[in-house]
């Protein structure tokens, strides 16, 4: 698992597809999530594009595309039941899967130990 400074997690599967979600720390900071808007499957994204909107009881925030690539699957379950993002942010409540162009780009992100240092826990 890799983490971004924007508190996303990324996991490369055996099929070369990267799954993206938000960290448990981010979910806790956001508070109860009440709305999620996901991109359409097939969308070509460039790193730092705003691809997801999350609204918690407190505020709206964006999730940025962590890498260049194409959205190949989205998790409709969290649209129907946004509270899953608080219940299991680093598991069942993933946001989208993307086919990336450059697998090496994943390496620039933090591993779990570095992320824990980053968030100061």
């Amino acid at each position, binding site marked *: 698992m890799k983490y971004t400074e924007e508190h996303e997690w990324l996991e490369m599967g055996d099929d070369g597809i990267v799954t993206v979600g938000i960290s448990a720390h981010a979910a806790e900071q956001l*508070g*109860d999530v*009440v*709305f999620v808007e996901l991109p359409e499957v097939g969308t070509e994204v460039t790193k730092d594009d705003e691809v997801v*909107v999350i*609204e918690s*009881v*407190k505020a709206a925030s964006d999730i940025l595309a962590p890498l260049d690539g194409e959205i190949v699957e989205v998790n409709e379950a969290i649209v129907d039941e946004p509270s899953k993002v*608080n219940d299991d942010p680093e598991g069942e409540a993933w946001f989208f899967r993307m086919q990336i162009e450059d697998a090496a780009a994943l390496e620039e992100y933090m591993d779990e130990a570095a992320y824990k240092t980053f968030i100061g826990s």
Partner: protein
Amino acid sequence: MADDLKTTVLNDLHLSLGARMVPFAGYEMPVQYPMGVLKEHLHTRAAAGLFDVSHMGQVILRGPDVAKALESLVPVDVAGLAEGRQRYALFTNEAGGIEDDLMIANRGDHLFVVVNAACKDADVARLRAALEPRGITVKLLENRALLALQGPAAEDVLAEHHPDVRDMRFMDVATVPLAGAECWVSRSGYTGEDGFEISVPNAAAVDLAKALLADDAVAPIGLGARDSLRLEAGLCLYGHDIDTDTTPVSAGLGWAIQKVRRLDGAREGGFPGAAQVLREFADPPAMRRVGLRPEGRAPMREGVALFETEDAAGAIGHVTSGGFGANVNGPVAMGYVPTPMAETGRTLWGEVRGKRLAVTVTDLPFVPAGFKR
């Protein structure tokens, strides 16, 4: 947390309960506890929630003809308020705008007034300027905390501590011994639920809060859920849904002005901005506060511009409070729209992230009130 923030006497208790603290109106206050805003909201409507509202201003007014004197500042019937009763009121300004909203209780030989935290210095100054020349003393209490116990279980919980509270009706006030101290209890609150607000001496406040929290039905509730509960109940938050630019009738608060203070009433007018405020009963103001129910699940928050149609150019109004209604299980909002567009059922459009989303003008409250009248 900034050093210049004040704290309430319950601060250590909040921290021990795991509260996340935020600055609010000059105080460090709990915004949520580990339960989280949504569950706190639902718990309050299902059982009971305990709120620390000690940041609010508690003021005693005492002196000759105090009720009539206070009527020089508020458009409500204070002189006709019976002993042991409380009433919602507004401070108005010369333009008819709203300076604050408040509660006034007739406690026999004095009036007990509760004002918003953010306005309390200005309110006390306003009260002193108007009332002291008439020989009335204005005392801002620093030695009492204020708790709100809200929800359908509130009566059973509080009656464990003193049975007399069962006999109180909505907006009754009484002196009741709780936690060994003289408490001033009103059957009121700001969640739309039945419940009580309890003014308690600082020295007994932590004991009382702990005793109430010891009941399984009671959970501590932060400002986050306090805001979503009052929004779902259709209640105004000062500085958001009402302010110096809104008038009582435009805010849908005309009901707070009793007939005796209106045109041709026995004590017509006599408060700041009376001409403007009273004219609006016959000659409706341009804008009107309404409930708004956005379609879909996206919250429509304060500041969102409202449009008459999906592609109209100019905004016709804006959202003043908006968020997620946990019991409605969807987004809810309030805002101001032109009076001709304020009819229930009308579709308007709010712009969120560049997209126009449909909203329906809706009767308030969004959830039925649970008051024991």
